[in-house]
């Protein structure tokens, strides 16, 4: 790939001369889809990123959000950072290193805001689990994340894993990081003052990862696994850990004026973006960069994506102290130039190799105006099934099955903040600095957004918010990772537009500002485009570190909150996008999300914190059938039945009710059911579906049969992934 002719014309018109090879390569990378969002930016204005809690919104390395002050109605000066990144193409070519470096990148985005990383969440998407190649990628990606995340001491507390045939040629690895900072520590990527020094800190620069940004902006070819390997970087978590500690000292001692981590397009990207944000320029001397290999040329030094490097703006009087700190941690460091009021200029051994306006380089890429087609919705064509068989198939599906095999490989407790561990609806970490628990949920649902991109993305949003609220947390902010296929195909772009609008509209309805994100297009391969995949990582806050478990107690009524099929005889259960249809075949329309979802989420967060609540569990993948099965533990079980309310007399209606995946529903087990009914009165219907029992089993009656599974049966069904990979 090289700079497109039309772009070259534009660049040379601006420069009034021919572009040097280094300039052409810089523009090629920084104006790529991956860096410049040329096909997606026109759509991204749909997002609302404002809010009283938002300290730094989209556009910096990570967003910064103030945590609520539990003692007042306002916000505290303790902040969390939020960032999300995709590492899709590298993870296909080299799953272990591709996924590992994805973790490294998002952690450095966190560091460059003056924050210490306190939690990771990974959302992973692979082709059909049955295929050997999917399993190979899955194992490699999980090992890569485990290797890197564990070593740097950042707990992985939440995430999601989905399998869908359309990821076969193009898996997705979306990694989110939450960091902790405060008013005094926070820094940004806005260069401050001409005359300050530009310092490069971290690993020595080598020839690795050349052209990663432009590689990420093309479809993967059939030979990608061998051909594109040089574009994948190799991570060194030990170097990253030293860099984290170095950064921590630099931030604590207030030695950094602005910072940007080196990611796509390497030093050229980071340093030009840093000065462009401050409306400034720079004079850089590329030969002063500490290098790992001899004889590197200007272009290689500018664009290499060697990992574990940070670019800092440092006041001249602090340079020596920065050097000392780096030396203490055995971290490389060089002064490579100065911030100026002029152009972004780079020289190499006396020769000027780049001399451009930084803002034009960063923001000048023309946007693509692409054609799109409205996606069509499937019609109803339902299968006839045997209930026990369907139940077992859905509970054992790799999508709904236990993900313990995955999160057991992640250190999810380092830092001693994790109060709700992975495997529950949301992870919760104690932020003692502000006296609040921060809940984290991350995921998308390819079955939903394949069936209905717009409504599916709305459902993904509500599902993440419900996950937080079920653990007592009120949503605070979200970041998105928008993954799509080749946008030049109108049907693909139509689906992509659908997920963007769906996320934006629902986040707006829920009053959750979307404070940042990432777009990954061209996830297309010879086996076709991926399902449009809107990964959302949402955080919420709760005044308590504790949360009700998803596991049922022996005593207490089990209530289903928010089920509109039971409440309204005219609402039919729609099975579109369900795991049930994926297993059994057939099609249906996708269930729409409820109108008053915001009130539901707010109330649920409050109710979940009340003492009478023994267990809460969001109803999502696999529907009610799976949610009930997941609540059974060694200690207690559930007796449940199709309620008389709702008139679900026919077999098909009852099956639809058990397996539909309509969002905005939650199971609440309580000793005070009247209190729950009162709380949700006028907002969401509340129906008794059963109660706890001492026997660790699920007894589920429908009108014509009874299902009964004990905890070992359920565990055996849900062990699909472990059975295959251990």
């Amino acid at each position, binding site marked *: 790939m090289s700079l497109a002719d039309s772009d070259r014309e534009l660049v040379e018109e601006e420069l009034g001369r021919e572009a040097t090879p280094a300039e052409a390569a810089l523009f090629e990378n920084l104006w790529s889809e991956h860096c410049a969002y040329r096909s997606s930016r026109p759509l991204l204005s749909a997002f609302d990123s404002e809010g009283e809690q938002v300290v730094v919104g989209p556009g910096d390395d990570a967003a910064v959000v103030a945590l609520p002050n539990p003692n007042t109605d306002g916000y505290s000066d303790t902040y969390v950072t939020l960032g999300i990144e995709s590492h899709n193409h590298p993870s296909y070519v080299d799953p272990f290193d591709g996924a590992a470096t994805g973790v490294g990148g998002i952690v450095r985005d966190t560091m460059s805001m003056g924050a210490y990383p306190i939690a990771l969440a990974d959302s992973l998407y692979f082709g059909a689990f049955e295929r050997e190649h999917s399993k190979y990628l899955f194992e490699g990606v999980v090992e890569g994340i485990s290797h890197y995340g564990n070593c740097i001491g950042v707990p992985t507390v939440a995430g999601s894993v989905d399998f869908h045939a359309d990821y076969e040629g193009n898996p997705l690895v979306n990694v989110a990081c939450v960091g902790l900072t405060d008013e005094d520590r926070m820094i940004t990527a806005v260069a401050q003052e001409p005359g300050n020094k530009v310092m490069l800190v971290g690993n020595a620069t080598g020839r690795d990862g050349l052209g990663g940004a432009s590689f990420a902006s093309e479809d993967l070819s059939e030979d990608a696994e061998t051909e594109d390997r040089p574009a994948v970087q190799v991570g060194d978590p030990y170097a990253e850990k030293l860099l984290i500690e170095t950064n921590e000292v630099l931030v604590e001692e207030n030695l950094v004026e602005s910072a940007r981590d080196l990611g796509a397009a390497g030093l050229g990207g980071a340093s030009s973006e840093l000065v462009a944000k401050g409306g400034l320029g720079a004079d850089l001397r590329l030969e002063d960069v500490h290098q790992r290999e001899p004889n590197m040329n200007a272009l290689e030094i500018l664009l290499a994506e060697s990992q574990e490097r940070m670019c800092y703006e440092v006041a001249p009087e602090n340079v020596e102290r920065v050097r000392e700190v780096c030396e203490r941690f055995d971290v490389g460091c060089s002064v490579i130039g100065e911030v100026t009021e002029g152009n972004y200029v780079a020289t190499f051994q006396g020769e000027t190799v780049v001399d451009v306006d930084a803002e034009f380089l960063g923001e000048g890429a023309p946007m693509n105006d692409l054609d799109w087609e409205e996606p069509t919705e499937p019609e109803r064509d339902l299968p006839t099934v045997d209930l026990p068989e369907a139940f077992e198939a859905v509970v054992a599906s790799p999508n709904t099955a236990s993900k313990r095999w995955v999160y*057991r490989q992640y*250190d999810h407790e*380092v830092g*001693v903040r994790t109060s709700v561990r992975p495997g529950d609806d949301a992870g919760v970490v104690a932020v003692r600095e502000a006296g609040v628990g921060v809940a984290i949920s991350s995921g998308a649902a390819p079955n939903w957004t394949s069936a209905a991109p717009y409504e599916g993305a709305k459902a993904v949003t509500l599902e993440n918010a419900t996950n937080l609220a079920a653990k007592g947390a009120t949503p605070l902010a979200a970041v998105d990772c928008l993954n799509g296929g080749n946008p030049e195909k109108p049907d693909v772009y139509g689906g992509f537009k659908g997920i963007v609008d769906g996320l934006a509209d629902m986040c707006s309805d829920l009053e959750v500002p979307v404070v940042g994100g990432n777009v990954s297009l061209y996830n297309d391969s010879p086996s076709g485009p991926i399902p449009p995949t809107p990964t959302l990582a949402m955080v919420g806050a709760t005044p308590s570190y504790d949360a009700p478990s998803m596991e049922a107690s022996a005593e207490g009524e089990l209530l289903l909150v928010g089920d509109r099929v039971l409440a309204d005889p005219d609402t039919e259960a729609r099975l579109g996008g369900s795991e049930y249809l994926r297993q059994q075949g057939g099609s249906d329309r996708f269930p729409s999300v409820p109108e008053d979802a915001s009130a539901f989420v707010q109330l649920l967060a409050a109710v979940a914190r009340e003492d009478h609540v023994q267990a809460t569990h969001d109803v999502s993948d696999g529907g009610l059938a799976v949610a009930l099965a997941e609540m059974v533990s060694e200690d207690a079980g559930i007796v449940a039945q199709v309620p008389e309310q709702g008139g679900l007399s026919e077999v098909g209606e009852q099956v639809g009710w058990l397996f539909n995946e309509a969002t905005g529903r939650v199971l609440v087990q309580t000793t005070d059911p009247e209190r729950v009914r009162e709380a949700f009165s006028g907002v969401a219907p509340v129906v008794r579906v059963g109660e706890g029992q001492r026997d660790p089993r699920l007894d589920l009656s429908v009108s014509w049969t009874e299902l009964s599974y004990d905890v070992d049966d359920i565990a055996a069904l849900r062990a699909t992934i472990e059975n295959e990979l251990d």
Partner: protein
Amino acid sequence: MTVAIVRFGGSNCDRDALRALESVGVDAEIVWHEDGLPEDVTGVMLPGGFSYGDYLRAGAMAARSPIMNDVRDAAADGVPVLGVCNGAQVGCESGLTDGAFTTNESARFQCEHVHLRVENADTPWTAGYEPGDVISLPIAHGEGRYEIDDDRLTQLETNDRVLFRYCDEDGDPSVDANPNGSKHNVAGVLGERDTTAVLMPHPERAALADVGGTDGRPLLEGFVRAVDAE
């Protein structure tokens, strides 16, 4: 009285150890390995993490860091030394304790909660428990399988050097309750003196009242007991 928590490059449980020790009333500070042990230390904790990235073999590089000469001297003088997780691997690699911790039977990293049976309650580390007590602590390691030759294991067992064994919730050290394939379910051992101990599970992750339980507190209080006993 100050306990030194030795930070190597790649240590990542050092801050957790500091907070946990402070919560049980032990004065502690993090010491960078290149700075050496302060003169007046009353205890040493080798924390978890991935010292030197575990690149050669878990703990192998840190064990050869000059500060470990100070730590060995201190241990010989009866200064309490506790190695946890990577610190336990460093402890074995540096000869503070016998045996070695190597790759889990599963060949994967494992983060989960396990049960441990207190084998010897007559040490500063375990005096807060009763013999046979079953406690719950988290593990988080890829190389935690305890290995040692049969003769030396017999010796350790005869001399009451085994501190904890992995067990089920009823205290049975069964094969199923062994998370990593450790020989005889050994999770932690004593060094030459009772004041030196290493274990793979993380007591510092079970010490704060608000998160993670408190089963690790009595163990950390061993720093106080060991000093009092001297």
